[in-house]
């Protein structure tokens, strides 16, 4: 550390026994990539930037929306509609102008992942879907990069350090040693459907930053080959040991070429079904008329849609409602597009597969996001 500034900025942590100026030098030289600047990514980024990690990469192509703010307090209400990666980098640069940021305002795919991950020492997984989690895991195994994993659901979070080669030469564990294959559709709910308490990703993302700092500086006992579960309702935590499993290696692409050919969306059953339509087609149907729109969310679910005419038939009573229709087209929607797809399949079958029945892919939240973006950008 050569500047007086740095000395003062990091003083309270360099005072720590075992950390010192040597630890600070390691942080300043480190390059950490945070994938996803959302609930987990925001707190992780804030503490990594504050601690003086010298180079921080941010991957996210999403924009800030109102429903993000309860768990992503890095952003403010005025940031709604702005790109997360750019907004985060701007705010973090104000927090710590002595470090540098690499912004990747793009969706991580098997085509760009290896190139984006390659320059970094440690990868922090703050993504919000299984497809990207498996993609990030496999990329880290291929590139031999440590992965600081975190995930949340409702009131519980998981944290682990994967793919880190410890001194005792135990084989490094990766996410597939825990869950070899992605869950099939309906085996788990995603965040938009399951909900999450705002402080929980704050806690878990901060723990991911803590594990990252420990790995870089070599202090303490990081969660190498262990999975910690934390429950925000009762404050209980539970740590389990993981073992590398030779068989799971066969699930991971063996070469960069194989990796680039992997379709992780398909692997995670996220591909578009013939019953799904995208936002553009949805908007065309609104304009065209002769389409019945049905909101299958439960009455308490927000936001209430006022932008176009529709009926509300909650999923819980949909099957009693027996929607038989002569209308040209029926389009159903819900929060994230998962329940509405189920509803669309059901109504399609009920009408002897003769009507056009569609579900809005990505749900009404993505639709609202998209339209806010058009207004503000």
């Amino acid at each position, binding site marked *: 550390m050569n500047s007086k500034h740095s000395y003062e900025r990091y003083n309270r942590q360099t005072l720590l026994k075992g950390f010192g100026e040597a630890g600070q030098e390691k942080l300043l030289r480190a390059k950490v990539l945070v994938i*996803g600047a*959302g*609930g*987990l*990514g925001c707190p992780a980024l804030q503490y990594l930037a504050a601690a003086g990690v010298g180079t921080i990469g941010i991957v996210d192509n999403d924009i800030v929306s109102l429903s993000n703010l309860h768990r992503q307090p890095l952003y403010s209400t005025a940031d709604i509609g702005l790109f997360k990666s750019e907004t985060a980098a701007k705010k973090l640069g104000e927090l710590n102008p002595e470090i540098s940021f690499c912004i990747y305002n793009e969706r991580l795919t098997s085509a760009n992942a290896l190139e984006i991950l390659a320059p970094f020492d440690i990868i922090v*997984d*703050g*993504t*919000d*879907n*299984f497809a990207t*989690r498996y993609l990030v895991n496999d990329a880290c195994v291929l590139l031999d990069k440590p992965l600081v994993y*975190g*995930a*949340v*659901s*409702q009131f*519980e*979070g*998981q944290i682990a350090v994967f793919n880190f080669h410890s001194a005792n030469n135990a084989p490094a564990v990766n996410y597939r*040693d*825990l*869950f070899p294959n992605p*869950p*099939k559709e*309906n*085996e*788990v*709910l*995603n*965040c938009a459907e*399951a909900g*999450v308490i705002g402080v929980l*990703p704050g806690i878990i993302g901060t723990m991911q930053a803590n594990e990252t700092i420990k790995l870089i500086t070599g202090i303490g006992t990081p969660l190498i080959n262990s*999975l910690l*579960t934390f*429950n925000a309702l009762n404050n209980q935590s*539970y*740590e*389990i*040991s*993981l*073992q590398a*499993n030779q068989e799971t290696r066969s699930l991971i692409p063996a070469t960069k070429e194989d990796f680039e050919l992997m379709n992780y969306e398909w692997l995670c059953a996220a591909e578009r079904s013939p019953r799904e339509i995208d936002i553009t087609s949805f908007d065309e149907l609104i304009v065209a008329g002769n389409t019945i729109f049905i909101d299958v969310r439960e009455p308490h679910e927000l936001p209430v849609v006022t932008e176009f005419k529709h009926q509300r038939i909650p999923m819980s009573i949909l099957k009693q409602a027996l929607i038989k229709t002569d209308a040209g087209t029926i389009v159903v929607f819900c929060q994230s597009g998962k329940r509405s797809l189920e509803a669309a399949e059901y109504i399609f079958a009920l009408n002897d597969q003769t009507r056009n029945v569609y579900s809005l892919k990505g749900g009404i939240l993505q639709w609202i996001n998209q339209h806010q973006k058009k207004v503000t950008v």
Partner: protein
Amino acid sequence: MAVNIIIFGQLTDITGEQNLILKDVGDTNQLVARLNTMFPAMANAKFVIAVDKQVISENTILESNSTIALLPPFSGG
């Protein structure tokens, strides 16, 4: 003999409880079969099993007072 079961994440929506005590289950296969009978929705749920804080990948004998954790994958962020 009885074993303690800790249920994590949304699996508790199925079991209604975070903690269960089950008697007369000799191994993890028997445990899963018993849970599927008690809670049919468990058969469609995805989770890993840890016995006394070690993740297992094959059928494992349970001792009296073993603690078994059932952990589903989380994807939220």
